[in-house]
Structure formats: C-alpha cells, structure tokens
C-alpha cells in the first residue's frame, strides 16, 4: 500500500517484490542467516559423508585412481574382517569406560570447584586447561611418564604398586594399554563434563537448598532431589556428546599405542585408519566408517528415545 505522505521522508530502497514472492520475507531472511552455516556444514559433513558412502561401494586401492564398482561387497567384507568385531567391542569398551569415568570425575570436580572458596579461580583455570591443550601435548607427557626409561609413573607402578615389571612398558602391555588409554583420555576430557555441569551448578539458586533444609533435608537428599535433577538434562546431553567423541577418538590412541600392543587398543577408527594406510583398501575403510556412523546414529536414536535429553523440564531460575 503506497502511503502518499510518508513516502518522501526516507529515500526508497531498491525495490524487492517481497509481496509477490511465494514465501514470506521473514522466511527468506531466516534462511539467509543460516545459509553460511549450511554451506560450511555441506562442505565439512554432507559432502564427505556422501563421498564416503559412494566410495564404500567401490573397491579402491588407496594408491590407484581407478575405482571399481563392487556394490555392497565391502560391507559384507567389513563384517568378515577378523578384527572388526573385536575392534567394535574395544571401541565400545573405550567409549563406555572413558565416558563413565569422565562423567563421574567431571561431575565430582564440578561439585568441588563449585564449593571451594579459596583459589577457586586458579584451580578452575588449571583444570580447564586440560581440555584446551593439544592432544599431542597430553600424549607427549603420557609417553614421557609411562616410559620405562625415566618415566615417573612407570616407576611408581613398578616399584610402589608392583603393577608391572621394572622394565616393562605399561603402554605396551596388553593388560594396561587400554586402561591407561581410558585414563589418559579421561584426564583430558573429564573437564568437558566439568565445564557444562559447573555452569549449571552455578545457576542453581541457593533458595532451593534453603527450602529443602527447612524441610529437614540432609546433604545427600539435597543432592539427590535438587542438584541431580537440575543437572540431569545437561548430563544427558554431555554423555551423548562425549560418547560420540570418544567412540570416534583416534589421535590419542594412535599417538600412544598405534592400536597395539597386538590389537589390544585397536578400535574402529584405528582399524579404519590401518585399512587405508596399511592395507591400502580405501573403499573398505569407507565402509567401516559408514558402519561406524550408522552404529552411532542408531545408538543416538535409541538414546534419544530412552532419555530424550531435549525434553528436560524447562526451568526458570
């Protein structure tokens, strides 16, 4: 509608026939705002996944540009690889083990950090740093301290606790490699849980605890009935994220043990990596990746169905 009087006040912008478009102006603007994200996402996720799927249908020698169509044969082979089921199992062990430790330790650290009065800021910063430093540094330090030559933890384990022999390398031990990987990974990533839960803890108003105290609640009851329910939503989300990240974790395993000793720490990402660079079977490796992806997707869907982290109680503080 042309307004005769108001028109002259402001210069007209270039005319866009919004009203004639089949969609609302706001819809266009809305899609505009997320467009960069969509583009980036397509580049980094959609295209590679589609590519991986396409590649998984071919027999591809890593150093040969020729692709040979084999349909689903790679998938059949994945299930036949002698190490596949073992790697899947170890991957699950690694995922569950490290996620549980991270959850327990992360939550515990958050509870403590939330309550201490002196040095809180410094300690929080130090703890957060674990998450921020490059994995390679963590690996270097871990390699250093578990080295049978001059590694301080190796020495403690051997001489104080008798966990392994004096000359034995714990990271090269079948008994210890996986456990230590889980511990080292947990050391770095427990903080992820801490960051999120600490943030939520800070947001719980004191009055809830006071109201509970008035009712006669003790510490445990307050934790169970107030703290835990308030944290539940974020804990569910964090557990999901951490599980996914840990299942896909490659760098720290590769840097510390290369999947060894034997296959004791070969998880699916390590297997996929070896399949590419040792077995030169790129198509097969992609099939492994797609299987991993589907496995995680199915697990995530089940997880959502069971817990529905998005349906947590909306709360106003």
């Amino acid at each position, binding site marked *: 509608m042309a307004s005769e009087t108001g028109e002259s006040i402001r210069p007209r912008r270039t005319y866009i026939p919004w009203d004639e478009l089949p969609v609302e102006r706001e*819809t266009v603007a809305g899609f505009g705002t997320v467009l960069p994200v969509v583009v980036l996402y397509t580049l980094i996720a959609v295209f590679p996944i589609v590519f*991986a799927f396409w590649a998984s249908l071919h027999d591809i020698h890593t150093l040969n540009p020729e692709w040979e169509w084999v349909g689903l044969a790679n998938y059949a082979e994945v299930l036949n690889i002698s190490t596949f089921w073992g790697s899947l199992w170890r991957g699950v062990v690694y995922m569950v083990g490290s996620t549980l430790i991270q959850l327990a330790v992360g939550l515990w650290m958050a509870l403590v950090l939330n309550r201490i009065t002196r040095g809180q800021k410094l300690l929080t910063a130090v703890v957060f740093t674990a998450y*921020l430093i490059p994995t390679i540094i963590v690996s270097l330090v871990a390699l250093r301290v578990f080295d049978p030559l001059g590694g301080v933890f190796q020495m403690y384990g051997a001489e104080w606790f008798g966990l392994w022999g004096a000359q034995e390398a714990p990271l090269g031990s079948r008994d210890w490699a996986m456990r230590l990987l889980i511990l080292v990974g947990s050391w770095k990533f427990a903080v992820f849980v801490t960051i999120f839960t600490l943030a939520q803890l800070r947001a719980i108003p004191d009055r809830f605890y006071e109201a509970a105290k008035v009712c006669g609640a003790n510490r445990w009851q307050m934790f169970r009935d107030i703290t835990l329910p308030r944290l539940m939503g974020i804990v569910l989300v964090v557990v999901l994220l951490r599980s996914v990240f840990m299942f896909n974790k490659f760098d720290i395993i590769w840097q510390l043990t290369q999947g060894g000793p034997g296959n004791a720490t070969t998880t699916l990402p390590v297997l996929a990596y070896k399949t590419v660079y040792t077995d030169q079977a790129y198509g097969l490796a992609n099939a492994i990746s797609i299987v991993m992806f589907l496995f995680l997707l199915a697990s995530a869907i089940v997880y959502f169905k069971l817990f529905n982290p998005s349906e947590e109680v909306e709360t106003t503080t």
Partner: protein
Amino acid sequence: MSQSEPPGGVFGLSYDDETRVIELLKLLSTAIIVLVGAWPIYWLTQLAFTDYETVEDAITYFPTPGIFTLDNFTVLTDPEMYTYMFNTVVVAIGTIVTVVIVSLIAGYGLARLEFPHKENFARILLVGYLFSPIVIGIPLYQIWRSIGLLGTRVGLIIALSAISMPFAVWLMWKYIMTIPEAHEEAAWVDGASRWRSFRDVVVPQCRPAIIAAALFAFALAWNDFTFAQILLPSTDTTTFAPGILRAMGQAQFLPDAYLMAVSLAMTLPPLLFAYFMQSYLLKGFQVRAL
C-alpha cells in the same frame, strides 16, 4: 522432642557433623584435584626447566639450581617451531572470529525469525558429529582444492570453523533466546534497523555465549591435527600439532625437555584464556536443552 523430629543427616550423623564431614571431603577432593589435574601441567613445566640431559637420565621432581636451565626454550627460536606456533595462533584467531560471527548471525536467525523446520536444524547439524573424520582426508582434500583454498590458512580456518559450527550455533541460538526481545523492540522504536539493533543490542549482550563459543572453537583449532595435516601440507603454513610431529620425525634427536618447553609455550595461552574468561564462559554454557 516429639516424633516430628527430623531423622538427621547422612549416615545418621547430626547435621553439624555432616557439615564437618563434607568440609573434610571437600578439602580432600581439592587436594586430589590439584594433584591429578595440575600434575601433568606441573610435570611438563618442571621438565621444561630442567637440563635436557638430566631429563633423559633421571627422574627429577623439581628443577633444582644444579639442573635448572632456560636453554630448552631456545627451541622456540627455531624458525620452524616459531612458524608452527605463529600459524596456530593465526588459525585459532581466525577460527574464533569466523565461528563467532557466523554462529551469531545464525543463532539470531534461529532465535528471532520464523521459518520452517528451524527446530530440526540444530539436531541435523549435530548428526555431523557422528561421522568419524578418519577417512575424510581424500574428499576434504578434493573439496578444498576445487574451491581453491588448499594449502592456505584461510582454508584451514574455514574447515575448523565448520566443525565448531553446530555446537556454536546451538549455543548462540539458545543464548539469544534468553535475551528479552523487548531490548530489540526498544531499539526499533528508537529507529534502529534490525541489523543495527542486532549489532548494538544483541551482540554486546551475547558476550558470555561468544566467549563460550570462542572457547570451543579455540580448543578445536589449538588441538587440530587431522585437518591441518590434510589441508596445510607445506611446512611454512603448517600448525603446531602436525608440525611438532614432523619435527620429531625429522630430527632424529629432539630431547624430551625441548618438547616440554614447546608444550609449555602452547599451554600458556589456554591457561590464560581459562583464567580470565571463566566466569563468562560458565555463564555462556548455562543454556540448556538440545
């Protein structure tokens, strides 16, 4: 008192004793956290200041005057090392800036504009995290080559921004929802355009979320190995993580103490980040619901 007396604290302690026990546990826990949490950082610090030959030979706990040295840090003056770290800083800053800008805009759109399917948007984004990046080297290489960003720091920045994006967008979206719309409306009433109100009113209030998203992006960029390895093959643009590995492979002899000195240099920026930004950070991470 009568039967209405409360049953008491945990394990049948009185409430006061319970408080005392909790205080004790807290002290103990703090001690453990200091030990376990700070220990590796302490360890790499003390090794970095210890004479490298001593580090190779013996277990030492503190760089006592006899073995204290600053020489290990000469490795930082090595032009390659310096280049790696410089590149890492550039990439980290670039990633943070990109992530923050793009996620702010997208978060604003999701929070304030009506358009179809936006509820599912973030969830679909998160699906991307389910895919292991182990085999994507080849497609990534091809994509980046075809858009002409291969081997440039900008290319790496874009890749890293893209993987930080789902999380950052989600964070920003939820955070902007907590800012009253009235603030923008007040600005419109004052004559501000949507863009202007976004810039003047929304963005400054998003500081905690911006810092939280920045932290996430920083952690990724600072840590990244895979993408740098694929996208920045040549030495003069490579970043720290692949660079240090390359240096370790190249120099047949690179003492651990030197590695620790470099590591310490790479640990300081995150430590400072965490120290000065933590309150904003925690506020930013207070958003809930997926």
